[in-house]
């Protein structure tokens, strides 16, 4: 039973990590850039969600505060994500030569990440802020046993969102444009796709998912703090690479795997070594499959 409980907890943790990992992977897909600022967009989402939920009545008004607070966090994070792209990445696009075309935006991304983190310390102070508890009680499920209501909710919500995302990517014009842009930017422009707009929408979508992940994470962990992006951001980034960066299903799989793995480790005597193990797994997978679990390094036919 302990094993099953750990599995459920792991899936919950993993689903949140996956929501954040999706932002890394989608932005990488369209820009071939690791958006290091993404972890800070996640953190900002947590704070915006916190203030919005408190402002809307917090635990006294859980449904409305929870839903509206999350939506506000999504909007806020999207605006931050779009601004970062606009101000820090877009001016660099198509500039520079050779290796610099890839390294310059990478350094900029790191810079923006540090900037946002410091900004958060200034605005919100470094202290841990308690998150209102919107869920109480425990569900008693057959087979699995006890599962807190908040975790059950997190798991279900994350899965619904991921299925929705998959439909969005497969079925809608935006999804097709994003996939086309990810494989060949010039060809996408030849189809009439306004690539700047698709890139901005990708940042908005990734940031919104990070905001949902942030609110769910805080509901689970009961607190928000300025460096929270580093912890979860790193795991999410590893998840994205593990699954195959640029691959949406890969990010989901990578997130879930990391979550489950982490909880399994906690059952052993080495519970402090979760992050170490995560990196070991990453290295082993990349040695065996350099493109990640679901990634393909496609060779184009000539």
């Amino acid at each position, binding site marked *: 039973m302990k094993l099953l409980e750990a599995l459920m907890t792991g899936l919950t943790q993993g689903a949140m990590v996956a929501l954040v990992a999706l932002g890394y992977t989608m932005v990488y897909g369209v820009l071939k850039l690791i958006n290091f600022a993404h972890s800070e967009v996640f953190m900002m989402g947590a704070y915006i969600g916190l203030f919005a939920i408190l402002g809307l009545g917090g635990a006294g008004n859980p449904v409305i505060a929870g839903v509206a607070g999350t939506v506000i966090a999504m909007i806020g994070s999207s605006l931050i994500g779009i601004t970062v792209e606009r101000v820090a990445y877009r001016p660099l696009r198509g500039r520079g030569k050779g290796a610099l075309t890839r390294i310059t935006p990478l350094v900029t991304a790191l810079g923006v990440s540090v900037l946002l983190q410091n900004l958060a310390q200034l605005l919100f102070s470094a202290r841990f802020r308690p998150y209102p508890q919107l869920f109480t009680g425990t569900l008693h499920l057959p087979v699995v046993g006890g599962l807190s209501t908040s975790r059950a909710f997190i798991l279900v919500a994350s899965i619904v969102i991921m299925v929705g995302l998959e439909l969005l990517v497969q079925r809608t014009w935006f999804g*097709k444009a994003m996939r086309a842009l990810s494989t060949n930017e010039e060809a996408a422009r030849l189809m*009439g796709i306004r690539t700047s707009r698709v890139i901005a929408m990708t940042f908005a979508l990734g940031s919104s998912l990070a905001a949902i992940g942030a609110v769910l994470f805080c509901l689970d962990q009961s607190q928000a703090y300025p460096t929270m992006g580093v912890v979860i951001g790193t795991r999410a980034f590893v998840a994205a690479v593990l699954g195959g960066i640029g691959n949406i299903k890969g990010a989901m799989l990578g997130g879930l795997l990391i979550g489950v793995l982490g909880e399994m480790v906690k059952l052993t005597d080495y519970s402090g070594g979760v992050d170490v193990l995560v990196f070991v797994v990453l290295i082993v997978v990349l040695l065996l499959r350099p493109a990640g679990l679901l990634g393909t390094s496609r060779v184009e*036919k*000539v």
Partner: protein
Amino acid sequence: MRTAHPTRPRRTSADGKPLLSLEDVQVSYGGIKALRGVSLEVRSGEIVAMIGANGAGKTTTLKTVMRLLPLSHGTITYAGEMVSGLGPEELVSRGVSLVPEGRAIFPNLTVRENLEVGAYLHKDAKTMRETIEDVTALFPRLGERMKQEGGTLSGGEQQMLAIGRAMMARPELLLLDEPSLGIAPKLVQQIFAAIRRIAEAGVTILLVEQNTRLALQVSHRAYVLRTGEIALSGSSAELAANQEVQAAYLGG
């Protein structure tokens, strides 16, 4: 095949003015001049070929027309309007489509999705269905492989897909960059037959081809590009009889 665009007004081909014209267009990559002042025009209903050796600037010319490359000098006019300052999306919406060199299909999208993305600017479901019907009538092989990923097609089939995808935008002017490149002779025949049918349906064509013989057979007029400049131009029959062209490009 239906080529009328659902929203764009149909131009009459008899108005005498060129559909596309380039005037003294110059383009550089870094410091290196690839086009040194190219002037050419394409009239409605024509098939115009552009031939020239490797590196002459043929691809650069087409990409510049499509507004994928900035020009350092000169103007491009399409249907009487200056388009030099616009972006590729704007050119596509005005009726110009490019089938790029090396095809550039989307390998991880299915054949159907590749075609759908080609109709990105007019997402009307009925038009799209009809245009897909037309494209699969033109290339029955594509119709048999709609669910297959683009990357799994043979080279010749990928070229068919690239042309079909460009036709999905219902262009008025189709730019083709080396459609025969690296393709088995039998499929080249099929592809050129399709190009003829597209032209018969009223689409104006600017064709870049390494296979000079074929290019001069299918086109009305042609330009010879040499190191970024137009070296010769004239009717295709004239050029095919020209000794210089025969020596340099027809191997005899």
